[in-house]
């Protein structure tokens, strides 16, 4: 630990009268006034929000939505890791169960029966996105979420998928199925699986 002692020059009498500082302050404020006031410069840096929209930077953590793959199928396989990791417990997933609807894409076997995010609880921490093994949930750019009731702010699966849009990526399950179809080892089963893709 070394301490650096900052040498402060003693103020001269002129400086101690505050006059130079006052003049300096006047100069600074005048410069800005001149730049911003109408008829002089008119260059305010304030963004006028509802009309002018902010350009959301890369990596911004907005509302988490579910995404679909390029074939329009739900990517989520209902592994519930996000539900587990979610610090404010905003995510609520209902797994399909044994008789529940089959996944809408080939080979994934499973997709959530219901997927709810309570946007009032969500703290936009991004852990759900980080933990998702399927790249099915992403924090997107939406930052102004409004509603007139608490119920409305609980986004269900349909809404989340609609808002989330499509996210292309490695189609893990489809790829596995294609790979399996190439192998002739278990032709009967793979044929059935291929049929399931349609």
């Amino acid at each position, binding site marked *: 630990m070394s301490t650096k002692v900052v040498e402060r020059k003693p103020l001269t009498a002129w400086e101690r009268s505050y006059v130079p500082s006052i003049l300096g*302050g006047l100069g600074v404020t005048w410069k800005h*006034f001149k730049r911003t006031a109408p008829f002089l410069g008119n*260059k*305010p*840096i*304030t963004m006028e929000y509802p009309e002018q929209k902010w350009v959301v930077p890369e990596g911004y953590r907005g509302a988490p939505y579910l995404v679909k793959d390029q074939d329009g199928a739900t990517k989520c396989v209902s592994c519930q890791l996000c539900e587990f990791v979610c610090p404010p417990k905003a995510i609520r997933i209902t797994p399909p169960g044994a008789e529940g609807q089959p996944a809408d894409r080939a080979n994934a076997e499973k997709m959530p029966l219901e997927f709810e995010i309570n946007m009032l609880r969500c703290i936009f921490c991004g852990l759900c996105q980080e933990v998702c093994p399927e790249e099915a949930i992403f924090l997107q750019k939406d930052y102004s979420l409004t509603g007139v009731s608490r119920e409305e702010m609980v986004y269900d699966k349909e809404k989340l998928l609609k808002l989330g849009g499509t996210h292309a990526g490695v189609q893990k399950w489809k790829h596995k199925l294609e790979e399996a179809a190439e192998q002739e080892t278990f032709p009967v089963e793979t044929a059935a699986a291929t049929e399931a893709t349609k």
Partner: protein
Amino acid sequence: MDFLQNLDPTVQFILFSVVKIGVVFGVTMSFVAYSVLVERKVSAWIQDRVGPNRTAPPMAQFVPILGPFLTRLGIFQPMADGLKFLLKEDFTPSYVRKVYFWIAPAIAVIPAFLTLAVIPFGSTLGNPGNKMVIADLDVGILYTFGIVSLGVYGIVLAGYAANSKYPFLGGIRSSAQMISYEIAMGMSVVSVFLLVGDLNLSKVIEYQAHGGWLVFKQPLAFFIFLVAAFAETNRLPFDLPESESELVGGYHTEYSSMKFALFFLGEYANMIASSAMMVTLFFGGWTLPFIGDPASGLLGGLLHIGIFVAKMCAFMVLFIWVRWMFPRFRYDQLMDLGWRRFIPLALANILVTALVVAFVNR
């Protein structure tokens, strides 16, 4: 006009006084409203912002070009603010001392308006007897100081009545600050009156109309008066009674709605009064270097009023400007400045002026 001239002088005096009071009061009120707007706009521009630019009455949008332009300038903002002050819930906390709590805002605002009574805001209007001052007192300046020192009661009472520590601290600070600077302010003016030789403010203007503005003869007195005026009106850099960052809102922390608005009104009315005083005492009042004689006609009278108002506006802008330029003083610095700098300086100034008047001007 003739029937006015033919009225009984007493009736005429009463009639004119009532009109003058009404006009001065109305103009001051709208001045307060719009100085708030100017304050917001100027601060916005100094900080590269836009300032109030949304509020508009519903019909404003139907006026092409002008409507949106005025809206962007925020012309309608003070109306909305005023309406809001009137309509907001007037909340009185249960723990306050109710009588004082209710009286305090009134005490804060009334002296500010009373000060304006002795300000000669123009020469004459219409006939030569009709002086543009509500009360042409011969002891105008004493009256002013007497009234101004009452203003502190409103703030002290507000701080005390709120029965809460932040307002209380604000009130304490305020009383100390105001008392301190009143001395410096009063002393600075003594030298002016030594030169003029009269306490009537109209006479001060008369003196300046011929003898030149007193700011050139008494720059030190002006400077002390200016700084003390900032302190007296609780404006930055001397807004310690309010100081949001330390005392939440200072003496008016517990106030809302119209009672809060009265404090607000009081502060701006004080600013206006101080500006008017400075214009009168040091900047020749309604005169200009080449316009010194009382007006003979209606037009000239209005011109003089215009000159006065313009000078006053300049000071208002100065008040506003300074607010966005300086950081707040520390309390000990404030006291130090008042007692150990300004009072000796003012005393010295009196002495020097007295000597000059006694030996040189004789």
